[in-house]
């Protein structure tokens, strides 16, 4: 590791020196380091004076730490611009081949570039925070709490790390600076949302929540760095492919991966469907662990948010079921319409989870999928608290259709985990795009041939069988 860092620092030193010779980088950094904190000092002074007139000092109390975070963030926004052209810029200037032909390893080259684009804006960020703090102390005598200061500095650092690591991934995978700039919205939009969230936390003054934001961003940055190194490909960087969307090629790759090993249907099923399911075994195990964890978290919440026993009249649940069934909006039990409503709902949920999983290394997808398990866990625990056997509750309301629906959800979770892991797993045989298309083909095959049929059967059971079982169990 030390040798890696030493070698990486050779790249870093050269690139930093190069940046410091470019006025287009220096000028914004200086402006954002010195002039912008001054402006924020002025804003803070004006705000304090203004709210003091109306006896609302709390606004100033919240605004000053918020501005501290803002002055820390602005200089690091420059790092995004530099990072986006770190690899692809060199590629366009045709200066990258000697570097790729040198004895530097992929990790050394990647880390060197990463540190080079992060250090100058980050140092500028720390300077801006210092300038702001000196100014605000002189103007209104405000001194931050030590923990808050550490949090703001840590936030600036992890935000820079996330933006830079994401931008370097883009830069090492695109064919032109223009394409990299266009793809930058995949960083800018989530970062903007994150900043809005952090701003709300700052005004809310729940500063301890910032630790979660710091920790979460640290994990995302680690995943992005791992993704970048896993898919760093010297060959791709030298390629002269144009930024054209080659749908025909993408379709051919997808089709060949979807079909897999051809043969008679039984053999094909064994090789391509059962084979894929077997390859998912660790992901399935992880998905099971996550769903169990979700259920346990849900049941634990029953202790915090308990429902008084008198509100749950288990004795008369049979009447409630009958009247309730008639009032559950568009769901019509014992009807095809009800089956399609439930199926559509489940399909929508797994589509959303998969989509979220794509943009979050699988994390948001898994969270989406374990939410229903948390709810089940919660109500099962509530049933136990209010005198009903949890097993009876599960047997009446969950198990009849859950016997098919739960495996379908777990399989979906496993596929989402694989989608996320694909990005952070090195693959020398295929490019990142090709790897993605192949994983998507696996996802589609299992969805169409296993998960959707399971969900269709589960929806049928939920509409036709579960109510009967529930009525049978809870009837007098």
């Amino acid at each position, binding site marked *: 590791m030390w040798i890696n860092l030493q070698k990486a620092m050779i790249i870093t030193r*050269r690139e930093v020196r190069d940046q410091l010779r470019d006025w287009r980088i220096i000028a914004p950094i200086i402006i954002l380091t010195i002039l912008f904190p001054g402006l924020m000092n002025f804003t803070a002074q004006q705000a304090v004076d203004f709210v003091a007139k109306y006896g609302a000092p709390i606004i100033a109390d919240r605004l000053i730490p918020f501005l501290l975070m803002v002055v820390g963030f602005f200089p690091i926004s420059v790092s995004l611009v530099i990072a986006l052209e770190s690899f692809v810029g060199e590629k366009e200037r045709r200066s990258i*081949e000697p570097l790729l032909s040198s004895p530097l390893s992929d990790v050394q080259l990647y880390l060197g570039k990463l540190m080079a684009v992060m250090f100058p804006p980050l140092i500028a960020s720390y300077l801006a925070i210092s300038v702001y703090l000196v100014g605000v102390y002189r103007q209104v005598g405000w001194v931050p709490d030590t923990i808050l200061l550490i949090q703001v500095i840590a936030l600036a650092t992890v935000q820079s790390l996330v933006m830079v690591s994401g931008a370097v991934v883009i830069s090492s995978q695109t064919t032109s600076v223009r394409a990299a700039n266009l793809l930058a919205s995949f960083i800018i939009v989530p970062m903007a949302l994150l900043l809005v969230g952090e701003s709300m936390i700052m005004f809310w003054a729940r500063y301890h929540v910032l630790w979660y934001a710091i920790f979460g961003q640290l994990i995302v940055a680690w995943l992005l760095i791992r993704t970048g190194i896993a898919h760093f490909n010297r060959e791709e960087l030298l390629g002269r492919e144009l930024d054209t969307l080659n749908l025909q090629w993408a379709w051919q790759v997808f089709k060949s991966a979807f079909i897999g090993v051809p043969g008679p249907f039984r053999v094909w099923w064994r090789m391509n469907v059962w084979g894929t399911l077997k390859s998912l075994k660790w992901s399935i195990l992880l998905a099971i662990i996550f769903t169990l964890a979700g259920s346990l978290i849900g049941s634990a919440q029953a202790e915090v948010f308990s429902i008084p026993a008198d509100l749950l009249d288990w004795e008369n649940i049979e009447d409630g079921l009958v009247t309730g069934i008639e009032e559950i909006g568009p769901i019509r039990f014992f009807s095809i319409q009800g089956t399609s409503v439930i199926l559509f709902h489940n399909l929508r949920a797994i589509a959303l989870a998969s989509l979220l999983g794509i943009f979050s290394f699988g994390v948001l997808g898994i969270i989406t999928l374990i939410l229903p398990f948390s709810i089940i866990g919660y109500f099962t625990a509530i049933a136990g608290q209010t005198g009903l056997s949890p097993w009876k509750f599960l047997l009446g309301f969950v198990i009849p259709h859950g016997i098919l629906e739960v495996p379908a959800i777990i399989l979906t979770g496993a596929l989402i985990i694989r989608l996320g892991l694909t990005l952070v797993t090195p693959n020398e045989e295929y490019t990142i795009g090709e790897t993605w298309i192949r994983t998507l083909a696996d996802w589609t095959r299992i969805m169409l041939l296993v998960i959707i049929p399971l969900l269709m059967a589960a929806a049928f059971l939920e509409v036709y069988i579960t109510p009967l079982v529930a009525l049978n169990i809870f009837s007098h």
Partner: protein
Amino acid sequence: MIVTNNLSKNFKDVRAVDQVNLHVRAGEVLALLGPNGAGKTTTVRMLTTVLRPSSGTAHVAGYDVITDAVKVRSAVGVLTEEHGLYDRMYILEYLDFFGQIYDMPAEEREGRIQYLLDKFDLLDAVNRRIGQYSKGMRQKLSLARSLLHSPPVLLLDEPTSAMDPASARLVRNAIKSLRSEDRAIIVCTHNLAEAEELADKIAIICSGKIIASGTYEELKQRLLGPGEYHIQFAENLDNRDLPLPSGVEITEKGTDWIHYQVTEPKEINPLVLQNLVTAGFAVVRVEEIKRSLESVYLQAVNQAPLEEINHVD
């Protein structure tokens, strides 16, 4: 030093390099000739481990290009098609940067940089940024970079392109001196005169395949047929019969000269001369007609689609 066996590279459905076999020993220079897009640069990039071969094997300085990629890159000096220079840097910074990457101690770096700047007439340019250099100077600097760590293997892609004649001569002399230092060198070039001057062996690549290879003499013999000779007589021949031994074929005849081809010149030419002199012909001059590498190259490239002539050994 450089050994490839059926080395091939596919880009999606295009076969850029097709089963190339090369063998370059220490102290040898191989000229890799071929039209644009023939696969020269792709071959060099596989030897520098920047491109991963689709099939076949390659060993450079004893290391496998797939399993020992970092060691291969340490042992190779590459002059790339693009110069790969950083315009805002100064020459000393630039060379020092690469010296550090190649793990050269500071003192050795300094000495080597001074030596190379002197060798390539670049000492006067140390105070200018690289962006202000002429094309020729940039090419010389790139060559200096590739030689910086004294690599046992050199891969030079168009080493004298964009150079004025004096600079090109300087670089060619440098390459010759490197050969004598027991290095294995591959030179990719379009400049046939340069290849003829520098190379011990020549390989002609076309559409990814080596279509002809060997020494210049071997290629001439193989592609252009038996050697052709010119005899100049002192007086007109006046339709007199020439007493030529069997195996000699007259290809052209003038009033006082003839051109002929012979498959075994070492044995037949003394007989030719002896017969003519005995018969009373006054021979002024006998010489081999020079056949350029250009004719060899064009013959090979024109013949390429019909047959593969040879593999490099």
